[in-house]
């Protein structure tokens, strides 16, 4: 087994890893905001239901959630609801949206009441206050915890192989099955590059937002 061949097949796996990562991020970022609004809702039943939902999703291992999304609809309905890949993305999106929602909630609740009141006395609407005044301050506040969560997501994608998705670790394990171990260790390099690039990106955002303090 040559180095080039292994690298190419790991890159194939990395493509799956990246797709799971990117789709999860793109969908979970806005969904998390919706969930955080639910958990902060003045309508108490909605707030309670949302909080219980978040508790369950954060309390059950993600690996189990992936398995549930893939197998349970099949048991109940006779046909699976999602493809393997679809199941992984669905489970990841819900799971990460819940984590994000808690980060958003913490960020939103940390904004001083005076910021809302200043907007109010200047005649701004609730949504103007949220989008024009509060949001950028929240973004700055949550950048560090979000960067942690996003980096965790990169590595969590490896859980997808529990339902036979050939992401990068699974691609390497396919070699291990033939007694070839080094590709498995080699995957670390890909993860490190991936995470390194993300860290640079977050560092760039942090710098961009350096001009103001919240």
């Amino acid at each position: 087994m040559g180095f080039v061949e292994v690298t190419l097949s790991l890159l194939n796996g990395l493509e799956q890893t990246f797709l799971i990562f990117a789709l999860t991020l793109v969908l979970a970022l806005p969904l998390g905001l919706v969930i955080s609004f639910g958990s902060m809702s003045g309508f108490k039943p909605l707030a309670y239901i949302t909080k219980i939902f978040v508790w369950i999703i954060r309390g059950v291992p993600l690996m189990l959630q992936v398995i549930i999304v893939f197998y349970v609809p099949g048991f109940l309905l006779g046909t699976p609801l999602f493809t393997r890949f679809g199941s992984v993305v669905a489970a990841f999106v819900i799971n990460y949206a819940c984590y994000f929602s808690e980060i958003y909630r913490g960020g939103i609740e940390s904004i001083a009441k005076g910021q809302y009141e200043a907007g109010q006395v200047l005649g701004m609407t609730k949504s103007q206050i949220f989008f024009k005044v509060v949001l950028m301050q929240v973004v700055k506040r949550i950048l560090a915890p979000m960067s942690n969560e996003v980096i965790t997501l990169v590595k969590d994608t490896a859980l997808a192989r529990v339902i036979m998705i050939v992401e990068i670790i699974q691609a390497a394990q396919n070699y291990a099955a033939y007694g070839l171990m080094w590709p498995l260790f080699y995957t670390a390099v890909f993860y490190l590059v991936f995470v390194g690039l993300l860290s640079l990106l977050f560092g760039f955002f942090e710098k961009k937002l350096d001009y103001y303090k919240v």
Partner: protein
Amino acid sequence: MVLLEVKDIKKNFGKTEVLKGVSFSLDKGEVLAIIGSSGSGKTTLLRCLNFLEHADSGSFSVDGETVFDAAVEYSDHEIREKRLKFGLVFQSFNLFPQYSVMENLTLAPKLALKKKKLSAAEKKAAIAEIEQKAAELLARVGLAEKRDAYPCQLSGGQQQRVAIARALALKPEILCFDEPTSALDPELTGEVLRVIKGLKGEDRTMVVVTHEMEFAKNVADKVIFMADGVIEEIGTPEEIFEHPQSEKTKAFLNSSLEKMY
């Protein structure tokens, strides 16, 4: 000419009666100073005027038009229109940290434009006017050269002057100040008080809650001493400071004099 007429405002928080029936009136161009010990309801009164609190009973009118009546439920939209008759400068400035000084002044006026249906040319003219007005106001508070600075780059006194300009940008009929210098180091209070004093020269109607007795004495046309949610005494600065009638007023003035020396 009476501009502001406040009638029997009452406000409870749960079982605590914070305002127990406050009535007063203010002429156009007058400056009203409200003094009183902490917890007497001064902030709550300003917050009721600015629709940050909904008074439980009472009403107030501006220029003869009732803008608030506790018996009426107002929609968010109505409140937004009515509250613009008032401006409020907070103790803690509450500038928007992510916006430059200039943007802090123009944000709300520009957002208000969006609700109006204007042609592209009208809109452009309106925006230019907002920006010009904001620049004038900044010059007015002595901060023309700080237009592109961010709040975190300003001293407390400068931030408060920006906050004053920001409130003025919306052309309120009555500008309220809630202890505008209490969060400032003593050496910075002067610059803010001078700006407020300067506004009086422009015939602005203002309500200033303050602990600066010298300022109240020299700048106000009318002084209210509040105690326990009621107006204990109201009068000209001479009447309140030189010839206070109420024992509570006397005690308060004595204790604030002691603090000064």
